[in-house]
């Protein structure tokens, strides 16, 4: 251990150095090497292009280090002309070269004026130096121009600077931007001051326009542009002239060419800038040329004789008859790629990145149709130009190079419309991204990769349209701002687009498909692992479908077992051979020849072949080929058992065997597409940038040109998003197994029976107390004393107790039992393409019916039922939670009635096989019609009446039942096989949100391309409301357990999926604790926070330590920004320390660490960029750890990277800050958002649990309280971690319904059980919150029971061996005390299994 620690510290130090270095060069150095003075003197030279090499060094992490001075133009010789000073701010850089050229033209050619001009890229204003310079420039300016200022915080900065200067400025021209910036507009008497506030022709129009189509703000502006001449007539003439000037300016701006911008500046200068006006007294005004405008939409080609084509007939006349023959493209067979461009790049002739892709595609023999649109709605040109005269699509793949959502761009999107347009076209739709805020070098050296704002606007939003493959294809050239193509990326993009097109063109019989399955943790017992998926049964279904559609599947067997055996070798070998089936042995020569990056792997793994996926001579690819289908096993990460790599996996790379696998797929098997089978493998988690891969990122190198379809669990949109972004995979969602109620068993079942008999006999003075005594003793056998305060079994006699106390006791036990009974658990494993049975659908619908959906005006079923007896359901829940027997009973009765009603609804549509084929509406059938006449009730109403609620109001149920019927249709309408085939056939797969089908039934039907949500939309108002409630409950509980004192600090864990499912609830909880409130901007995006005054808050601000998962960091870095700003705001609020724990702790830290208060108030932590998880889970799954210290060290090292809103481009290692923040923590807290991913289902929860870490750091060494919020049901709860572990164990690991359900799927089932056992032990290791009885009972169920033991051993010996090992390990590490006998049995068993596996 000593060695490990020393080495770790040494490495830590190294890591720290490398992490710090870039930061010290990147902050505040943007002006380094280019002082004002040197700049001025340089600018006097004829050449204004300054030497860019002086300012761009490695800028790791800093997103925008360019400076505006590069864009400054100063007249060389004013020749006595008055000089107009112009400052402009733009979102995108393509205007830069046009503006520069325009200004130079005026300076060279105009007799009346000269122009001094400086431009800023919006994102640069984050930099303090740049911002100061900007202020200075605006203070000296005559004219201010802004365009596309759509980033809230930066919009505020612009307003802050320009607003006070507005009166002095001669003109302010703002083109589409946030309303508050638009209000700065001023051209003479023309203003938009009242935009969105009071009546004015223009603002009303724009407001209405926005409401009408919602699709695009800019569309509205364009429309306004066209309509304005009519409006102008009604204005007084001077006003009209000013308004006309504005509109003309807008047209010139949209035109974008140097000529147009020259006209704009000349026009504004001579009309509004006093000195110029004065000097022109008596002279004739220069009549500005009419704006030169390209058509609003058209087809463009770089070498076409005319600039653009306004219809595709004309285009193809030229293209097919002249261009293609000349270029050697065969128009009959060539694939056709549709490309979507941004008009401003064509206007400004900043188009080489477009030309580049077009030429790469054409030189590969494909045709190209490149279209653009003037506004930000590209759906019009898509519909117009991508179809031939007969209405057939012309294109085979579409690439959107704008990086924007198809309809609405950065402002407001209409995703529904976009997806509908794309589905009609039905072609793969790729959305590639040009770097806008970063130069190429900044992106290349950044570990985060693409700038977060761009990720939000140009990756997240297009995904919602159904876009795939966010490949960076162009960069911004630092010195000139021009877009330049990235040769290797453009080539990759061309290759990938053509491979997708190929899937449509190639006949099915010839297509080669690679199915990749996973093995995780790497062990033979785990081959074919995927969350909730019966992998081999699903492969069987996919093979059958492939065959049906004409693919060649050779002699593939048609049973699950045979397929499995073919991959795992023969059935005997499953036990006796350590080897999987070898599909290919790749010599090292061949490997190096075919794998261009193989040398780079040697740093970590030495020369090939190494010892992973290797036979010592060759690299070995495991799997089995059937016809044109290859089923292959993805190799493991390779460092699972290696503590050093677990700690610093970021510096690792895939091993040679991993690389060889993908080389084999692409270059030897020559797959046309790869199907990654289930949630989830390792490809997308390989080291590399977070988003926006470069050619040196491993996911990119591995997948190379292969189209990838990824079957992904519908409830895991966050990790699916990582797969989409990092490994260029299109996802196909699959249904998680339907959640059923856990039910009761053994002693718990007995308890329930006892309680029902008590209900009948409680008045009976003889039998009542006797039953209570039995209840008490059974409760003890079930270990319920851990959850409920029970009287002492030895001394208590209920006969001597009061009836009220008896009721109270029974109520408390009953409430506990109900929690277990009604808890949801996913039963069994899902097989692709198999919809749930009626019974399973009922379970899901009951849960859907349980939630109120005020936004859809749908009331929950329990609420309606409770109302029929004049009760409020929340009231009943409260009573239930407090163990009020009547309320517990009533709640149980309502639950039963709900189930009966839903059952009645589903039964209408159930066939004799117990499956729902076609949903028959209860609203339009004949019986319904006659029913109304005769006064008969609907079946579901009748069911509720029968369940004891005769007063139920049928009309009140109508909305809900209609909704449930709709949900039922969605549940059974899965398109999983269909979705897979759509991708393999080169069709467009419809997008769908991922998440919890119960909260958000839009997740259904499955079989669609999953996306996360628009990150700037969270937290929603509803989420903020819910979280305030949870925070209140949490603080109540903590106060109660802490002698009436508020906790000072709470450690939080934030998950990507959790926040997607709940629309940011846990994020909102953090804000609520600190006492800040998220504020939405006028476009409904949350990107601002404000402090809630202490008087209003009514309690102290609670400090937080937020640990974000790597996935959360990838998806929601802007929300990390939000939290960090909120926390810093709290720390800087001058408030009494006893009312502001954030400030209190930050002041201490600032003193201790010698940093500023602001820097000390860093509370938002995560992994370093591009790395995921604490790897504690990996260590525990593997068993390869020595002491808990090692795990804690790993947690601190890997999760101790701070986010800082002041340096948003990087994650900075801040181990000391992390530790000092953690040591004041009183409580650790996590959210449990859905029943199917609970705390023992996956390793993630304990992986990031800091309970013991905090204990170690605290001065008093007191273990912090560990709590979990459970928002999986309408009746949200805050429980202790120990309670939650018990609840989970009772409903899963120890529950026959669960383990029998798992075992019915065979091989995979054993592994699933083992996984829960191991994860349970994980909680012992990280939090020490697992009761002994959990292990004891598990041992009784799985080991002591000889029959069970045998079943497990026969079904999956490898997994069973792991199970035995886990028990022994739990005992060895001191987490489970048990009898000698038990241990001996386990040891014998271990030897026996080992022998069997080794084939002795």
């Amino acid at each position: 251990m000593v060695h490990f620690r020393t080495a770790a510290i040494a490495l830590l130090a190294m890591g720290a150095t490398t992490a710090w270095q870039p930061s010290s060069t990147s902050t505040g150095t943007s002006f380094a090497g280019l002082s004002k003075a040197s700049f001025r003197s340089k600018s006097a030279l004829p050449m204004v292009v300054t030497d860019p090499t002086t300012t761009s060094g490695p800028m790791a992490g800093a997103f925008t280090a360019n400076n505006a001075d590069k864009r400054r133009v100063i007249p060389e010789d004013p020749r006595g002309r008055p000089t107009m000073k112009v400052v402009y701010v733009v979102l995108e850089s393509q205007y830069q070269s046009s503006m520069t050229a325009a200004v130079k033209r005026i300076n060279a050619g105009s007799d009346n004026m000269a122009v001094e001009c400086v431009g800023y890229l919006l994102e640069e204003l984050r930099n303090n130096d740049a911002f100061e310079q900007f202020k200075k420039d605006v203070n000296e300016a005559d004219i201010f121009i802004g365009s596309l200022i759509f980033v809230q915080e930066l919009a505020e900065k612009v307003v802050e600077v320009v607003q006070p200067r507005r009166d002095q400025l001669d003109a302010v021209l703002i083109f589409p931007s946030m309303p508050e910036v638009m209000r700065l507009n001023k051209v003479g008497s023309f203003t938009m001051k009242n935009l969105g506030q009071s009546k004015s022709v223009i603002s009303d129009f724009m407001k209405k326009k926005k409401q009408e189509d919602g699709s695009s703000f800019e569309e509205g502006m364009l429309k306004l542009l066209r309509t304005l001449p009519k409006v102008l007539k009604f204005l007084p003439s001077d006003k009209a002239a000013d308004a006309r000037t504005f509109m003309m300016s807008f047209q010139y701006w949209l035109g974008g060419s140097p000529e147009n911008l020259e006209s704009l500046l000349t026009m504004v200068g001579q009309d509004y800038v006093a000195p110029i006006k004065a000097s022109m007294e008596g002279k004739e005004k220069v009549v500005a040329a009419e704006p030169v405008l390209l058509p609003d939409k058209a087809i463009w080609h770089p070498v076409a004789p005319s600039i653009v084509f306004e219809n595709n007939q004309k285009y193809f006349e030229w293209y097919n008859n002249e261009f293609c023959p000349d270029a050697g493209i065969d128009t009959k067979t060539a694939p056709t790629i549709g490309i979507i461009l941004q008009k401003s790049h064509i206007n400004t002739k900043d188009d080489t990145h477009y030309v580049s892709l077009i030429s790469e595609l054409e030189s590969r023999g494909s045709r190209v149709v490149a279209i653009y649109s003037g506004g930000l709605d590209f759906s019009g040109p898509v519909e117009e130009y991508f179809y031939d005269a007969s209405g057939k699509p012309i294109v085979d793949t579409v690439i959107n190079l704008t990086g924007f959502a198809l309809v609405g761009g950065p402002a407001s999107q209409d995703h529904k419309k976009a997806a509908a347009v794309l589905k009609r076209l039905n072609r793969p739709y790729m959305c590639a991204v040009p770097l806008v805020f970063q130069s190429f070098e900044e992106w290349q050296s950044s570990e985060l990769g693409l700038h977060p704002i761009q990720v939000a606007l140009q990756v997240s939003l297009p995904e919602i349209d159904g876009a795939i493959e966010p490949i960076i294809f162009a960069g911004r050239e630092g010195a000139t701002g021009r877009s330049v193509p990235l040769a290797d990326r453009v080539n990759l993009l061309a290759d990938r687009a053509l491979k997708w097109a190929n899937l449509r063109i190639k006949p099915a019989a010839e297509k080669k498909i690679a199915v990749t399955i996973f093995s995780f943790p790497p062990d033979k017992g785990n081959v074919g692992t995927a969350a909730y998926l019966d992998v081999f049964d699903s492969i069987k279904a996919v093979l059958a479908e492939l065959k049906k559609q004409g693919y060649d599947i050779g002699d593939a067997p048609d049973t699950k077992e045979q397929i499995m055996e073919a991959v795992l070798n023969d059935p005997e070998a499953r036990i006796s051979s350590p080897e999987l089936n070898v599909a290919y042995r790749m010599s090292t020569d061949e490997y190096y020849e075919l794998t261009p990056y193989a040398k780079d792997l040697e740093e970590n793994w030495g020369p090939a072949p190494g010892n992973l996926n290797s036979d010592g001579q060759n690299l070995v690819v495991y799997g089995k080929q059937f016809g044109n289908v290859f089923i292959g096993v993805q190799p493991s990460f390779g460092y699972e058992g290696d503590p050093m790599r677990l700690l610093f996996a970021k510096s690792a790379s895939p091993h040679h065997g991993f690389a060889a696998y993908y080389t084999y797929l692409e270059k030897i098997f020559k797959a046309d597409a790869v199907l990654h089978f289930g949630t989830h493998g390792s490809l997308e988690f390989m080291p590399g940038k977070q988003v926006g891969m470069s050619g040196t990122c491993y996911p990119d190198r591995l997948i190379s040109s292969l189209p990838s379809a990824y079957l992904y669990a519908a409830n895991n949109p966050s990790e699916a998003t990582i797969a989409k972004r990092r490994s260029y995979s299109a996802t196909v969602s699959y249904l998680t197994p339907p959640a059923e109620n856990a039910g009761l068993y053994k002693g718990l079942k007995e308890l329930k029976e006892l309680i029902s008999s008590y209900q009948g006999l409680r008045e009976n003075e003889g039998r009542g107390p006797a039953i209570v005594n039995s209840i008490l003793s059974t409760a003890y056998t079930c270990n319920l004393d851990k959850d409920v305060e029970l009287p002492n079994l030895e001394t208590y006699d209920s006969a001597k107790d009061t009836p009220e106390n008896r009721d109270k006791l029974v109520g408390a036990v009953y409430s506990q039992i109900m929690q277990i009974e009604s808890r949801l658990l996913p039963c069994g494993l899902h097989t692709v393409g198999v919809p749930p049975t009626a019974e399973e659908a009922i379970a899901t619908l009951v849960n859907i019916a349980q939630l109120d959906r005020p936004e859809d005006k749908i009331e929950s079923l329990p609420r309606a039922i409770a109302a029929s007896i004049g009760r409020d359901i929340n009231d009943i829940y409260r009573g239930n939670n407090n163990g009020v027997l009547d309320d517990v009973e009533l709640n149980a009765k309502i639950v039963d009635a709900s189930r009966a009603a839903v059952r009645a609804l589903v039964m209408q549509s159930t066939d004799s096989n117990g499956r729902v084929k076609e949903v028959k509406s209860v609203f339009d059938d004949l019986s319904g019609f006659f029913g109304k006449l005769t006064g008969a009730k609907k079946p579901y109403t009748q069911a509720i009446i029968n369940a004891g609620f005769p007063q139920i109001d049928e009309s009140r149920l109508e909305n809900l039942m209609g909704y449930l019927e709709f949900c039922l249709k969605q549940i059974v309408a899965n398109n999983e096989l269909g979705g897979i085939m759509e991708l393999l056939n080169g069709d467009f797969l419809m997008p769908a949100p991922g998440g919890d089908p119960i909260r958000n039934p839009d997740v259904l039907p499955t079989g669609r391309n999953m996306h996360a949500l628009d990150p700037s939309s969270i937290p929603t108002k509803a989420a903020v409301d819910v979280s305030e409630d949870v925070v209140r409950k949490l603080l109540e509980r903590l106060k109660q357990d802490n002698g009436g004192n508020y906790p000072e600090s709470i450690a939080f864990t934030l998950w990507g999926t959790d926040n997607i499912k709940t629309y940011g609830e846990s994020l909102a909880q953090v804000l609520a604790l600190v006492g800040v409130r998220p504020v939405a901007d006028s476009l409904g995006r949350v990107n601002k926070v404000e402090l809630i005054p202490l008087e209003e808050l009514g309690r102290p601000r609670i400090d937080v330590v937020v640990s974000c998962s790597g996935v959360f960091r990838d998806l929601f870095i802007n929300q990390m920004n939000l939290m960090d700003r909120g926390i810093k705001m709290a720390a800087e609020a001058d408030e009494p320390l006893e009312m502001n724990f954030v400030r209190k702790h930050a002041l201490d830290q600032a003193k201790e660490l010698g940093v500023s208060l602001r820097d000390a108030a860093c509370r938002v932590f995560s992994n370093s960029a591009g790395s995921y998880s604490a790897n504690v889970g990996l260590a525990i799954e593997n068993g390869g750890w020595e002491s808990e210290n090692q795990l804690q060290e790993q947690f601190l090292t890997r999760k101790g990277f701070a986010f800082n809103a002041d340096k948003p481009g990087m994650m900075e290692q801040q181990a000391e800050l992390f530790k000092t923040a953690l040591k004041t923590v009183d409580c650790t807290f996590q959210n449990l958002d859905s029943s199917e991913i609970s705390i023992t289902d996956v390793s993630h929860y304990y992986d990031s649990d800091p309970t013991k870490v905090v204990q170690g750091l605290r001065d008093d060494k007191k273990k912090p309280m560990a709590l979990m919020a459970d928002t999986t049901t309408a009746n949200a709860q805050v429980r202790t971690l120990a309670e939650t572990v018990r609840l989970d164990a009772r409903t899963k690991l120890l529950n026959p319904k669960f383990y029998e359900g798992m075992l019915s799927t065979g091989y995979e089932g054993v592994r699933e059980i083992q996984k829960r056992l191991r994860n349970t032990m994980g909680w012992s290791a990280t939090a020490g919150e697992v009761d002994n009885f959990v292990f004891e009972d598990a041992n009784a169920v799985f080991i002591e029971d000889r029959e069970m033991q045998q079943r497990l051993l026969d079904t999956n010996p490898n997994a069973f061996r792991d199970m035995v090992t886990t028990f022994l390990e739990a005992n060895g590490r001191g987490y489970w005390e048990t009898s000698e006998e038990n241990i001996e049995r386990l040891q014998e068993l271990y030897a026996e299994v080992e022998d069997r596996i080794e084939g002795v």
Partner: protein
Amino acid sequence: MKLSRANLLTCALLASSSLVSAFTTPSLVARPTGVVCRSMTATAEATPAAEEASSSEDADIQIPTNLPSACGMDYVPLATMLATGDLVAADQFTRDALIEISGAKAKGRNFVYFTDVKNIPSIDLATMERLWNKFSKGKFGYSVQKKKWNQSKGDFEVFCRKIGWTTTDGEVERKKRWFGASEFIYDVKKAPEGHLPLTSALRGTSLIKSLLKHPVWDNEDWKKEP
């Protein structure tokens, strides 16, 4: 033909002055703005190089005069620039010549699209190649690049590394800049083999690929002096 040094310089200046307008027409592949702008100053900077060239050899330099063209192109300026060691100008001249002799200019374009390459007469390519070869002692020229291309197995990134078209900023590898101060090496001794003439990939790598696939390189005939 024999020229004195002073004449050579004028010649070079004349050749490059026609390129200065590039500043306002920024879209160029064959002719990057920065390099062009620089060429004004670069000409001046190139003087020491020219001086060196002239001091190490005779003040009088042999300029080949038999420079055939299938389309009436005059290659004397190129020969002159190369002979005097003004590689910056020679490089620019070569790219400009391609625009002309590929017919792109006649079509009103100021860049060569890859489809134009097949229109470039072999005679002209051969003439330019012999000049580059001669004055770089076999170090520069498309034929040298073709050899490197083959060694790179058609991988553009590897190719760029081989002929020195990439550079590193710290750990970041990037292509040398086409804008601002040129980062390319206009020095026969210091530059790697195949470094010149430059062909930009700003409009895709297909242009250089097509150039290197031109039939003129299929055999060694281009080497023959006319």
